[in-house]
């Protein structure tokens, strides 16, 4: 039982962590929490199944096209749901605009793809086993994203530019950085990460339009617990969430597992509103 909790808990935790990172990448570039993050995850699974299973494309091509689809939705999110409300961030209109876009995409998927879950292709021709690819693929994807983002942010000029606009976009723009272009690129990158989460977890979550709200909610928990914009915090909190959720599934089961997860979530936020790994912002007086 412990092995089962750990395996599936870590795997689903990696998917939550990736969705959390998707939120963070978009947040860093715009100070906006885009609720299309879970929709991007759902779309990764649906597009993977569409390109590989239904259209019969090679796995590598289907994978790249699914990521491209995620990037495209990321860019659309920036243009349609984020850019128009950036001037009035304090009114939090982005909650409505990004949720509206997420719902449109979700309903469109339900109409065109169907409301039934559909199979996601098995990516490697390996026999089903205890440490199955449906578990290690999300772990691998999470590892690749963490390492990739570290390399991008610390060792490339573009990465430094991303960090600059995340730190202070007015100062970055004053220094001549193309803030709008970098924001669009950040949203495209977030789209790729979100789609990768859904693609890597496709065998576990299936190609199902209903995954969007589930990932939107559970993917936000690592962000809140790990600290806004803190990717390392999101990974740790995502893994803890996955493990706790699976343990709750085993111990209390059914619908009560969700209740247990959100009870702990609220208790943690009551104790540390800035999140487990977040730093409390000093307030100017």
């Amino acid at each position, binding site marked *: 039982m412990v092995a*089962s909790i750990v395996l599936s808990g870590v795997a*689903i935790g990696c998917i939550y962590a990736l969705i959390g990172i998707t939120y963070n990448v978009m947040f860093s570039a715009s100070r906006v929490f885009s609720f299309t993050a879970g929709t991007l995850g759902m779309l990764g699974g649906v597009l993977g199944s569409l390109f590989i299973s239904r259209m019969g494309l090679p796995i590598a091509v289907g994978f790249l096209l699914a990521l491209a689809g995620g990037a495209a939705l990321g860019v659309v999110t920036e243009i349609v749901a984020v850019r128009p409300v950036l001037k009035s961030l304090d009114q939090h209109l982005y909650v409505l605009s990004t949720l509206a876009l997420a719902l449109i995409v979700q309903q469109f998927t339900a109409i065109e793809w169907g409301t*039934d*879950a559909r199979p996601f292709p098995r990516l490697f021709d390996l026999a089903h086993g205890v440490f199955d690819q449906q578990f290690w693929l999300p772990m691998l994807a999470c590892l690749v994203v963490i390492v990739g983002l570290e390399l991008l942010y610390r060792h490339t000029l573009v990465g430094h530019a991303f960090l600059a606009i995340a730190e202070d976009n007015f100062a970055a723009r004053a220094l001549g950085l193309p803030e709008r272009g970098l924001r669009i690129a950040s949203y495209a990158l977030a789209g790729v990460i979100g789609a990768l989460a859904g693609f890597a977890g496709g065998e576990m*979550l*299936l190609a*199902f339009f209903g995954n969007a709200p589930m990932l939107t909610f559970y993917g936000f928990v690592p962000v809140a617990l790990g600290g806004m914009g803190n990717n390392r915090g999101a990974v740790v909190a995502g893994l803890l969430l996955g493990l706790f959720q699976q343990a709750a599934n*085993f111990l209390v*089961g059914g*619908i009560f597992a969700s209740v247990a997860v959100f009870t702990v979530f609220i208790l943690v936020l009551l104790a540390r509103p800035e999140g487990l790994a977040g730093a409390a912002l000093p307030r100017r007086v």
Partner: protein
Amino acid sequence: MSITRRQALASAGAAALAGGLAKPAIAAKEPILVGYLPALTGPSSSTGIGINRGTQLAVQEINAAGGIDGRMIELITRDTQSDPTKAVNGAAELTRGQKVSAVFGPLNSGESLAVVPMLARTNTPQIHPCWVDSLTDVQKYPMCFRNAPTNQQIGAAANRYVVEVLKLKKVAVISDTTGYGTASVNAYVPMLKTKGAEVVYQGNVDAANPDLKPELLRMQSAGAEAIMPWSVNAGFLSRIINTRGQMQWDVPIVGQTTLGSGQTKALLEKPEYWAKVYPNNFRPVCYAPGGKLSDRTGAFLDRLKTAKIDLSDTLLWWVGVGYDTPRMIAEAMKSVGTEPEAVVGYLNKLKKFPGVYGDISFSPEQHDGYPDDEVVMVEANSLKDGAFNLAPGYGA
């Protein structure tokens, strides 16, 4: 020649009388309009598309045989697009605009829940095949008839199979968290207990939950001898079947018809996991032990093949209920005409209408016409030509 006012009035009166006398002769050749509300597009359209194949065939056959006393049936179709709002709009247009003589549909419960109360105010006879219990009520909807089972009959058949045929007493009942799922569990668990079964596990789980192993382990440790899932979500059902297979746990899974759908099959990790899975179905459209359909259904299957109607992507009972309903309406109108009260009066006395899907009977007090004992369980992995083998334990 001058015409007096009296002559003009007499001529006008004669003309009006002649016109009035001629009217029935013209009306006799007019088609009989029957409203039809299938979901031919949208997420719930697989049922509608299957039923529509039978409906179109029946109308063609009725009209080819001379119609109803020389009057052709004209099906006025409004695609509900799987949307209750569009179904209501379609029903309003059919009754108020087209003034149809009867309505067949909607074909999904969600749409019928919206349409049935609305049609009840329009004095239009209605027949639908939807399962939600509240969709017939002789007091509230006296012109509405159901030629399919209710959810109570569906649950009762599954319970009967587990307790009386398989002789299993310890049962796990699981559903998703939808209204249908939770309502089914709440309704069927007391029925199981009345039958003497012990419900050792009862749970509602989010259909998107990717890992159902904890739930199945809990069922196993509680000593469950059968799993009864109630959900129309193929992903949820396939996870139950896959997890049972991974655990190499040899208990039967008995429940909702979606257990036997192509969508569920497509989500199975191994085809052999589909063994010992028994979904609901209907005896007249199932293969008896020995692999034979009844003579009536066999003849119907031959007609479908002659008409080149494809069954590879649909279910025989869908096509069957689609075929039966226009014939039932036609028989009523052939006997008593098209007046709404007369049609309802005829249906209220209908006894064992010989349908492909089942023998339908109504009474003034009972508008649920499907017989209890025709609701059976079948082997999920035996689908051929849209029909299944009866589950083990049923007699021929």
